[in-house]
């Protein structure tokens, strides 16, 4: 009897132990993918699978793999024809695109001028309420004289006209997306979306009608993994093949211990900035904005929090941009000067050093750390920042509507300097454009509108040099830094080209070396 109890208990323990060992033994919680599939971990769900509406970075990068546009930008930011094999500019107000023949959507239909016209018309239609409309508002008309020719006409000379030609094309007749449904439109790009579960994953597979380089991935799984630690683990486990610009900088050194992972760091055009709400009279005072600019130690932040994966920025255009002007007013870290400016502006410090200036800084959970840094740095000069953390979708909606005091955000894929018009022209406030801070300066308006109308590149460059200097003087934004493009990938992805705007485009043309036989360093 005594034996029975002991044996029974021992057996139970042994069973539990065996179960644990079995679980451990199948520590392979990796999903079993076919070798021709790659998994890309992204941090939040794409907000839209329709290229006519998506403005955030993740949606745009995914849509770029699914939809083609008339032109694309190459790695140097120059426009090259994509759907258009030949481009003519007969006059400053007209561009003629000659389309390639034989381009097919993933359902087999050929892409013709009709689809292009339809796409642009649907964005321009008032009921679309697309944020992209502001970008192509200058289009007076878009016509198709024949099936393979598209003519864009603007009312006035429009220098950045080719930027308008970067919209992803959907088939004629594609309905506007009803909120909440996720029926993804068909595209003519290298991939098509075959499945999308919000907050889980988006699955892309090859467009059967797109020329397929041998050895390239057959399908891509975009898995939504909000937890940065899990993304790092999935890379280390070989579950995830690629992760772009969403790995914590502090974790990057950790990957050095994993031989089959590669960290790629290239200068980027992504521009991180601090935005002000000009409807607040306190922030309309230039001295306050300058004080804030002097109070932030950007150099130290780049070297410590970013671990050097960035360059302190002087303005929205990075040095790679053709219109870049580096000779502008800059603000090196100078808290004493900041305090002096605030005193001049009438905000005297009390005994604890605070000046009765309180602002609310909105952020996402991922951005909270930077927010706390700003909070501490601004407090040193007497400004109190309260942090408000919201989930990304809510946060982005608030910012787009202009509902914030201070916030920091980034512009991804800045290319043509006409972006200055979109973000600083006083008419371009929400919902008409991206001037979310309601900045209004007639001098800036004149310059950016002139820059838009001047077609001669030399004259244009001169105008934008003035714009950059004005922006540096007037501080509608405080420029923070240009973020390096940091990607961590499995070495089995061979031939990945990093684009300064973090594009995933190259995923369509990488070669996959077989799993388990990664090439030595």
């Amino acid at each position: 009897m005594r034996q029975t109890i002991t044996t029974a208990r021992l057996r139970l323990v042994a069973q539990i132990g065996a179960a644990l060992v079995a679980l451990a033994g199948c520590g392979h919680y990796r999903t079993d993918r076919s070798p021709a599939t790659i998994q890309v971990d992204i941090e939040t769900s794409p907000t839209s699978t329709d290229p006519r509406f998506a403005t955030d970075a993740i949606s745009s990068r995914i849509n770029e793999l699914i939809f083609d546009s008339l032109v694309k930008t190459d790695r140097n930011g120059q426009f090259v024809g994509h759907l258009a094999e030949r481009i003519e500019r007969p006059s400053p107000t007209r561009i003629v695109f000659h389309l390639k023949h034989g381009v097919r959507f993933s359902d087999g239909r050929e892409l013709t001028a009709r689809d292009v016209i339809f796409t642009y018309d649907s964005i321009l239609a008032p009921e679309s309420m697309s944020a992209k409309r502001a970008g192509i508002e200058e289009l007076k008309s878009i016509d198709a004289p024949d099936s393979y020719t598209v003519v864009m006409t603007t009312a006035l000379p429009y220098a950045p006209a080719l930027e308008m030609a970067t919209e992803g094309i959907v088939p004629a007749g594609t309905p506007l997306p009803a909120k909440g449904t996720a029926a993804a439109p068909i595209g003519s790009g290298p991939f098509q979306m075959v499945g999308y579960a919000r907050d889980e994953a988006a699955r892309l597979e090859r467009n059967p009608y797109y020329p397929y380089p041998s050895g390239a991935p057959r399908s891509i799984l975009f898995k939504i993994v909000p937890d940065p630690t899990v993304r790092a683990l999935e890379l280390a486990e070989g579950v995830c093949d690629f992760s772009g610009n969403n790995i914590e900088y502090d974790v990057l050194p950790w990957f050095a211990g994993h031989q089959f992972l590669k960290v790629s760091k290239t200068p980027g055009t992504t521009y991180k900035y601090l935005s002000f709400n000009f409807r607040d009279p306190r922030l309309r005072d230039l001295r306050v904005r300058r004080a804030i600019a002097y109070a932030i130690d950007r150099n130290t932040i780049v070297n410590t929090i970013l671990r050097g994966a960035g360059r302190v920025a002087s303005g929205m255009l990075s040095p790679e941009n053709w219109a870049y002007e580096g000779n502008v007013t800059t603000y090196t870290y100078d808290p004493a000067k900041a305090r002096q400016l605030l005193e001049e502006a009438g905000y005297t410090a009390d005994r604890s050093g605070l000046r009765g200036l309180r602002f609310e800084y909105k952020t996402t959970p991922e951005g909270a750390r930077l927010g706390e840094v700003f909070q501490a740095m601004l407090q040193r000069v007497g400004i109190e920042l309260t942090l408000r953390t919201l989930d990304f979708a809510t946060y982005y909606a608030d910012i787009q509507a202009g509902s914030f005091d201070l916030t920091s955000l980034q512009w991804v894929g800045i290319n043509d300097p006409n972006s200055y018009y979109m973000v600083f022209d006083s008419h371009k406030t929400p919902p008409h454009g991206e001037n979310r801070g309601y900045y209004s300066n007639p001098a800036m308006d004149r310059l950016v509108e002139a820059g838009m109308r001047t077609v001669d590149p030399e004259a244009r460059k001169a105008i934008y040099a003035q714009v950059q200097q004005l922006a540096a003087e007037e501080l509608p934004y405080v420029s923070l830094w240009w973020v390096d493009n940091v990607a961590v990938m499995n070495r089995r992805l061979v031939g990945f080209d990093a684009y300064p705007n973090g594009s995933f485009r190259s995923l369509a043309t990488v070669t996959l070396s077989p799993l388990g036989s990664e090439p030595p360093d």
Partner: protein
Amino acid sequence: MKNYLVRRLLALVPVALGVATLTFAIIHLVPGDPVVAMLGENAAPVDIVGMRRQLGLDRPLLEQYAAYLGGLAVGDLGESISYRKPVSRLIAERFPATIELAAAGMLVAVLLAFPLGIIAGSNPGGAGDLGAMGFAIVGISIPHIYLGPLLMILFSLDLRWLPLTGRGGLAHLVLPALTLGTALAAILARMLRQSLIRVRESDYMRTALSKGLSARSALVRHGLKNALTSVVTIIGLQMGALLSGTLITEIIFSWPGIGRLLISAIGARDYPVIEGCVLAFAITYVIVNMATDLLYAIVDPRVRIS
């Protein structure tokens, strides 16, 4: 028995009503304007008016309350602002995940408690007792928000045995269930220990010994039998802690249940979803309590008569 059942069911109604009313009160009687909180102070007046109408906030409070109760009766909890889907559907989609986690937590608790309690109770004052009870008191004191990450560091990051977060196969359930069930295991273990000690010192033992049974087996057999009703009682009493623990554990492990839905709804200021999730948890708890009472009544007839 049927009388008892009917009585208990009827008693459920005022409590459910009270819970629904309190939830309504919390959400609707808050100072400040929830629509302004949602859309921001700089929102266009036409948007504010539109949203207010959409949420039914422009109607008098009593009418809102009546509509709310009416909706509840047919299972309509309104529509989520961020997902644009009916709240009831969102909750129904995530309910199984929460139940799975809660059930796994209970199972782990029982599996852990029995060996611990038996070791402790069969030799009180001994090394095993000290060890087991030390383990138990620590288990009750470690909060989920620390135990979870601790287990993650050990089993997922260092040993790489188990996945870190998310729901998937059995392997994904282990760490969350352990995190959730440890506190309950500790309480159950202590109770089992008490039960065994009591049996030791009782008449049962003497009778059993006189009958020639080994001390150990008699001890365990009777002790465990007595303990069974107490196990049910304790699980019933701890159900509240278990449910709210499930909420926290879902956040820690990114488990796609109602708890996670609630917290993200709070972040998105999605009031209909917040209301729905709070109700879902509370009503679940009320029903589980009733079920425990009924179970008790089946096991112990004395309860029915009182």
